[in-house]
C-alpha cells in the first residue's frame, strides 16, 4: 500500500465513522464541545466585564493588569496544565476538590487559557470605538451607564469575534487538557474503536492517542470533525467581522 492509498483508505473509513455516527467518535466530539463551550462561556463572562473595567475605570494596578492580560494571551498550555495538575493532585493545595482527571479540571485549564484571549481582543475592540462616540453620548445627556451600553453595541462584532477566537483556541488546545484530564475513555475503548465512550478524551487528545496506536482512520475522522468545527467558528467570526 503506497502513501496515497493509505491516506485514501483512512479518509474513506473516517467518513464512514462520521456518517454512521460512531458512538466513540461522537462521544469524543461531545466532550470537546462541552468542555470548550463551557470554558469559553465562563471565560467570556469574566473577560468582557474585565475589558470594560480596563477601558472605563481608572484604578491602581490597571496597567499591570493590562500587561497580565496581554501576557496571558500567549500562555503556554502545557505550563497551565502542569500548574493546575500540581494544584489539583490529591497531595496538592486543592486536592480536596477531587477534580483531577475530570472534565471540570479541563474546563478550568481552558478557562485560564481562553480568558486573556477574549479579554485582550475585547479590549482592543472597545478601544477601537472612536472617542467622539462616547463624548456624543454625554453631549446628548447620557451617563456612564449609557456610555458603557453604547460602547458594547458599537464594539459588539469585535467582542463576538473575541469569543469565537477563544472558542477556536479552546477547541484546538491539547497540552493542558491532556495533563489535567488524562485523555480517559471508558473501559474497552482502548482495545478497539466504538467499544467505549469518552470521559475526558477530546478531539485533540484522541488524535494524539489514536495516532500513537496507528489507528489513522479514527485519527483522521476526529481531525476532520475538529477542522470542521474550527472552520465553522472562523466562518462565523468572518461573518460578524463583515457585518461590522
Amino acid at each position, binding site marked *: 500500500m503506497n502513501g496515497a492509498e493509505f491516506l485514501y483508505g483512512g479518509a474513506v473509513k473516517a467518513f464512514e465513522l462520521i456518517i454512521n455516527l460512531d458512538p466513540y467518535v461522537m462521544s469524543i466530539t461531545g466532550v470537546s464541545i462541552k468542555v470548550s463551550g463551557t470554558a469559553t462561556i465562563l471565560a467570556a463572562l469574566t473577560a468582557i466585564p474585565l475589558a470594560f473595567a480596563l477601558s472605563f475605570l481608572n484604578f491602581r494596578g490597571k496597567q499591570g493588569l493590562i500587561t497580565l492580560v496581554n501576557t496571558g494571551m500567549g500562555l503556554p498550555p502545557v505550563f497551565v496544565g502542569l500548574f493546575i495538575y500540581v494544584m489539583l493532585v490529591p497531595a496538592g493545595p486543592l486536592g480536596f476538590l477531587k477534580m483531577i482527571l475530570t472534565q471540570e479540571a479541563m474546563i478550568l485549564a481552558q478557562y485560564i487559557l481562553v480568558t486573556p484571549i477574549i479579554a485582550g481582543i475585547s479590549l482592543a475592540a472597545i478601544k477601537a470605538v*472612536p472617542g467622539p*462616540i462616547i463624548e456624543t*453620548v*454625554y*453631549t*446628548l*445627556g447620557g451617563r456612564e451607564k*449609557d456610555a458603557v451600553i453604547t460602547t458594547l453595541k*458599537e464594539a459588539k462584532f469585535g467582542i463576538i469575534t473575541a469569543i469565537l477566537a477563544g472558542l477556536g483556541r479552546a477547541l484546538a488546545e491539547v497540552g493542558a487538557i491532556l495533563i489535567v484530564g488524562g485523555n480517559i475513555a471508558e473501559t474497552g475503548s482502548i482495545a478497539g474503536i466504538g467499544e467505549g465512550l469518552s470521559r475526558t478524551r477530546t478531539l485533540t487528545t484522541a488524535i494524539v492517542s489514536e495516532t500513537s496506536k496507528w489507528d489513522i482512520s479514527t485519527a483522521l475522522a476526529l481531525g476532520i470533525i475538529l477542522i470542521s468545527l474550527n472552520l465553522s467558528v472562523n466562518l462565523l467570526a468572518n461573518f460578524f467581522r463583515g457585518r461590522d
Partner: protein
Amino acid sequence: MVEDLFRIENLSMSFGDKKILKNINLVIHRGEIFALMGPSGAGKTTLLRILNFFEKPAGGDLFFEGTRLSHVREINTVRQRMSLLFQTPTVFNTSVFNNVAYGLKVRKMDRTAIEKKVKDALTIVGLQGKERQKARTLSGGEAQRMAFARAIVYDPEILFLDEPTTNLDPANVAKIEEIIMQVCDEKTTTIVLATHNIPQVKRIANRVGLLLNGELIEVSSKDQIFNSPSDARASAFIKGDMVY
C-alpha cells in the same frame, strides 16, 4: 429683558506649558445666536468643550443661570439641558431613527412621543422617510443633518455648534444655517457657534466674540464688529489681512 445664561469670568486653560485660553470674560444671553469667531487653533473648540464639561479650566469661574458650576454637584443634570454638535458628525452604528432617538431614550421618554419627536426633527433637517436607513450609509451632509436632528430633538436650551458646516457643500451649508436660525426662532434655543467662516457669522449671528491666540479680543453686536471694530486685530481679521 436680556437674561444671562452663561457667564465666564477670568477663565484660562493650558495644555502643558501651552496657554490655550487667556483670561476669558464673556456673557452669553438666553435665546441668542452667539458666534465665537476666530482662526483655527484660536481656542474655540477648547472653550466649547469647557462649556460642555469635557475639559476642566485651569482657572476662572463659570456660571450657568447664576450658579457657579463648580458648585453644581450633578454636572449631568446641567448637561442634559445642552447639546453639542461636533465638526465631524459622529454616527452610532444603527439606524437613523435610533441615532436621532438616542437623547430621548436616555431621558426615558415613551415610545409614542419618541416616534413623533424623531419624525418632527427629521422633517426639520429634511431627512424625513430615512428613519430605517443605516446611519453609516448617509452622505457627509446627510450625516451632519442627522446629527443636528439628534442634537435638537430633545429641545435643549443651549446648543453648541463646533464648525458645523466645514467640509459641506453649499446646499448643505445653506440648509444647516436655515435650521440653526429656525431652531433659535421657533424653539428659543440659545446657540453658540464656533466658526472661522466670516460670511456665515454675518448671515446668522446676533453677537460675535473674536478669539485670537486664546484671547477674546472683542465681543460686540454683529453690526458693530463688522462695521466699526474697536480692535485693530479684529479689523485685520475681518478684512482678511491677518495671516494665521
